[in-house]
């Protein structure tokens, strides 16, 4: 009997805490209950101004400073590579994809872009005017080092 009471108590408290948490969690539903439809956010506008943004962290895949609407990347064709590939970037003056994209996972260099790096938009995204939903307190490595250096020695 005691066991049963404990089990009921535990499951009830779990239920209550999860409901409380669910109300405080940021979701795309904006806290609306499941039977109501949230008004979706407006689609952000893609920036098409060719201005490259700073990378947030050293290994960040660079973002795309132009529109990529209708760019097909599939087994037959890769629209991105028709400007950014090794052979064609001299004609287009677009930045060539990094040499790492021509390496397979064992570090061997291939003649063409490695299959594992072929689907550009898997890592690279367009730049939009979207405001971040959540404030970021990320600190860049350089800033961390600078802060450490300028700190007086104890």
């Amino acid at each position, binding site marked *: 009997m005691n066991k049963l009471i404990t089990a009921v108590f535990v499951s009830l408290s779990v239920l209550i805490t999860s409901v409380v948490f669910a109300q405080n969690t940021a979701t795309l539903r904006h806290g609306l209950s499941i039977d109501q439809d949230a008004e979706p956010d407006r689609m952000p506008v893609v920036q098409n101004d060719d201005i490259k943004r700073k990378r947030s962290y050293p290994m960040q895949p660079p973002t795309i400073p*132009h*529109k990529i*609407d209708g760019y097909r990347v599939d087994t037959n064709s890769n629209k991105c590579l*028709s400007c950014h590939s090794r052979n064609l970037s001299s004609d287009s003056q677009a930045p060539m994809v990094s040499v790492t994209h021509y390496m397979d996972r064992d570090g061997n260099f291939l003649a063409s872009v490695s299959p594992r790096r072929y689907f550009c938009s898997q890592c690279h995204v367009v730049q939009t005017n979207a405001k971040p939903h959540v404030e970021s307190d990320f600190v860049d490595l350089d800033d961390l080092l600078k802060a450490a250096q300028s700190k007086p020695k104890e």
Partner: protein
Amino acid sequence: MFAKLKNTLLHYWGVLRRPAVHYSLGFLVMGGFIAGIIFWGGFNTAMEATNSEAFCTGCHEMETNVYAELKGTIHFTNRSGVRAICSDCHVPHEWTAKMARKMQASKEVWGKIFGTIDTREKFLDKRLELAQHEWARLKANDSLECRNCHNFDYMDFTRQSKRAAEQHSTSLASGEKTCIDCHKGIAHELPDMEGVEGWQ
């Protein structure tokens, strides 16, 4: 048998080359004129009917392949609602060239009857060849069907992105390149582009 046929033909030839006995010249001229309008109008109406989207997509080959692929593109759906139908890009607007294209299209009727591309697999196998036909046609007529709407003389480079303005004001302006050289696969999916100029 042949003698009878010959006699019949000769009889009608005789009717045609003798002057009319019962009908006035005015009646014949006016009658001919009205009949001409009806025939010419009928011919052009029928011709226009074969230019409609409903006619093109009446075949499942078009409906399930190229038309389905068109649907997501800028020429089908966009902010201003102006759109192109099949014939805007694939049939010349000028009358003589249009007739020539319509006669070529009899090959497509043949293809339909014998099921040249009646499955997705057959269509995909043939896509490169079909695409090459269209690229060659647009290259040869300096992308006429594009230019029916996109008139170079009225392009405002300041309203284009930097890269677009750069290319349009140089290669396109000098006539060295034409629309289709860069804008391939804008309305349909592409075949395997290996070996095609400007592609990887």
